[in-house]
């Protein structure tokens, strides 16, 4: 005869309520693990997706994610000349926060090396990738923009042509992808008055120099756009991504580039570690610690619940012992109820989490590994929590039911 089932059936309401309560707690534990995994995955996601073998950044910086990096755009051309390099792309990123439809819209703008890179690799939800060199943007769905919508960035209107999923910067902001030229014009956008003042200042500076006095043509040039002045370089980019030909020794290529005094080169793996140990390090540790704490607390609560559940049955257990019941029967009763409780709680946590986590502002990634671990942890806790009660049950004397 299965006593556990009958006991549970007898106090079904209370049992279910306890299970659901425990399930909610487990859901939080699961969610915390998911948030942790989400932060790590989001942080390195762009690096993984961009899939550059080498990252060329500003000398001695840990950019472009951990800190600001500026490299001359001609590094792209230089990189292409190194033997073993299959391709090089410029990479631009910066975060903007603008007003859109009356709400602050915060996004991480990423420039794609048009026309080679049109964002074919993006995980699209709707719409398409970039099809023209200007005024198109592919937005992550966390930005809340829809296909066909227009946003004003700088002086220009950009049309949302596609929506991606899971494209998030390490800070948690959704990505807005456009061509590098567009990304730079958003980044370096200055109002007309500032441009006018800068041009006037150029003339002013030139007039006080020998160069300006001896070569009046210079003064004419000062009024032109920056791109028309050879003395002014084209805008800097954040980094240059390099892909190698198959079978090429990374070390050799890297050594060649390290010879350039203005850049530092990282491998993809190094770039990933820079991020994990850099900007998201504290967040990661904070959440990791909190999660560990949560696991411990849940364990204690679960053990207490199982213990009191056994205490409630102490009278019945004493009676069973009086009737000569074997320990196996008593341990079975306690353990079966514990596992039933654990199983229901786990199921509640899983089903509820599946529905709730997608609504979290940041990605919550519950991996299969995590599910297995949690199931194991719950099972271990069931045994640990019950053994406390069983220890007590084994000590209860039958004469405690006498009278």
């Amino acid at each position, binding site marked *: *005869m299965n*006593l556990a089932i*009958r*006991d549970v*059936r*007898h*106090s079904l309401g209370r049992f279910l309520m306890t299970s659901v309560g425990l399930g909610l707690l487990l859901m939080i534990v699961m969610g915390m693990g998911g948030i942790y995994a989400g932060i790590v995955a989001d942080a390195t996601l762009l690096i993984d997706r961009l899939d550059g073998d080498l990252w060329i950044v500003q000398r001695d910086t840990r950019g472009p994610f951990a800190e600001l990096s500026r490299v001359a755009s001609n590094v792209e051309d230089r990189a292409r000349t190194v033997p073993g390099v299959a391709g090089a792309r410029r990479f631009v990123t910066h975060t903007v926060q603008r007003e859109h439809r009356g709400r602050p819209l915060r996004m991480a703008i990423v420039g794609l090396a048009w026309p080679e890179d049109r964002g074919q690799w993006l995980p699209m939800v709707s719409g398409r990738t970039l099809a023209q060199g200007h005024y198109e943007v592919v937005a992550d769905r966390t930005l809340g923009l829809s296909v066909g919508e227009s946003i004003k960035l700088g002086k220009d209107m950009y049309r949302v042509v596609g929506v991606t999923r899971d494209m998030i910067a390490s800070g948690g902001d959704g990505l807005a992808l456009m061509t590098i030229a567009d990304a730079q014009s958003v980044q370096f956008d200055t109002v007309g008055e500032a441009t006018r003042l800068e041009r006037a200042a150029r003339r002013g500076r030139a007039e006080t120099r020998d160069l300006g006095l001896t070569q009046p043509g210079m003064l004419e040039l000062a009024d032109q756009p920056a791109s028309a002045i050879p003395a002014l370089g084209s805008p800097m980019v954040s980094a240059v991504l390099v892909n190698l030909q198959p079978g090429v020794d990374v070390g050799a290529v890297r050594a060649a580039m390290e010879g350039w005094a203005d850049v530092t080169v990282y491998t993809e793996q190094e770039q990933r570690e820079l991020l994990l140990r850099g900007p998201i390090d504290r967040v990661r540790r904070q959440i990791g610690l909190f999660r560990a704490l949560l696991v411990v607390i849940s364990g204690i609560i679960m053990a207490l619940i199982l213990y009191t559940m056994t205490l409630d049955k102490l*009278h*019945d257990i004493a*009676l*069973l*012992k*009086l*009737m*000569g*019941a*074997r320990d196996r*029967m008593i341990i079975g009763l306690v353990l079966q109820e514990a596992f039933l409780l654990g199983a229901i709680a786990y199921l509640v946590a899983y089903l509820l989490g599946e529905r709730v986590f997608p609504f979290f502002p940041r990605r919550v990634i519950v991996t299969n590994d995590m599910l297995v671990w949690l199931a194991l942890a719950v099972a271990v806790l069931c045994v640990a929590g019950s053994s406390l009660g069983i220890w007590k049950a084994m000590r209860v*004397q*039958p*004469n405690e*039911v*006498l*009278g």
Partner: protein
Amino acid sequence: MSAAPAIETAGVTKVYGSGATEVVALREASLTIQRGEVVALLGPSGSGKSTLLSAIGLINPPTRGEIKIDGKIVMRGPRALVDVRRFRREHLGFVFQKSNLIPFLTGLENVLVALDIAGTEGRPAKRRAMELLTELGIGARAKNLPSALSGGEQQRVAIARALANRPSLLLADEPTAALDSTLGRQVMELFRDVGHESGAGVLVVTHDQRALDVFDRTLVLDDGVLREDW
């Protein structure tokens, strides 16, 4: 019916505590109950009735003395000579004053669990349990939880459960204390019939003087000293 007495004790003494708090609850108690014999145990409160019963029931070992059940020495002083729990499930049946039943099991299941413990399961167990419950007049209430049964009905279920494994000795500690006197007497008569029919020795602790005629014999405990009341 076996020739050996259901229970035989010799010089059973029980001392609780030690030093200043020492209480001698039983002094050299010796008794014999034959199988099929139904005996009442009488005595004022604190005289050691429950102590004697729990010593015989292998629940609370005596300090000194020997206990023989069904012809077998089971306790010598505080030392058990058998697997106590196994011996309990095979040879002994218990009924207490109240809360005898497992609250989450029906009357039938309460009897079944005792059978299950002793290794009887399935259809034969169910047949035996229903048979007992019907005999005790509560066959119709077998599917009820204890909370839905009256005190008298609960005690009948408890008796059925105690009898389930055909014990050689049935021990009852004030089984009628929670019942009114008419019902109490009925339950006492039940013990008598059960003892006579099943051939188990029956020892019933009671306060109720009026039901004593039901029993074959009466033992009296007074301050730990046991004597026969003729």
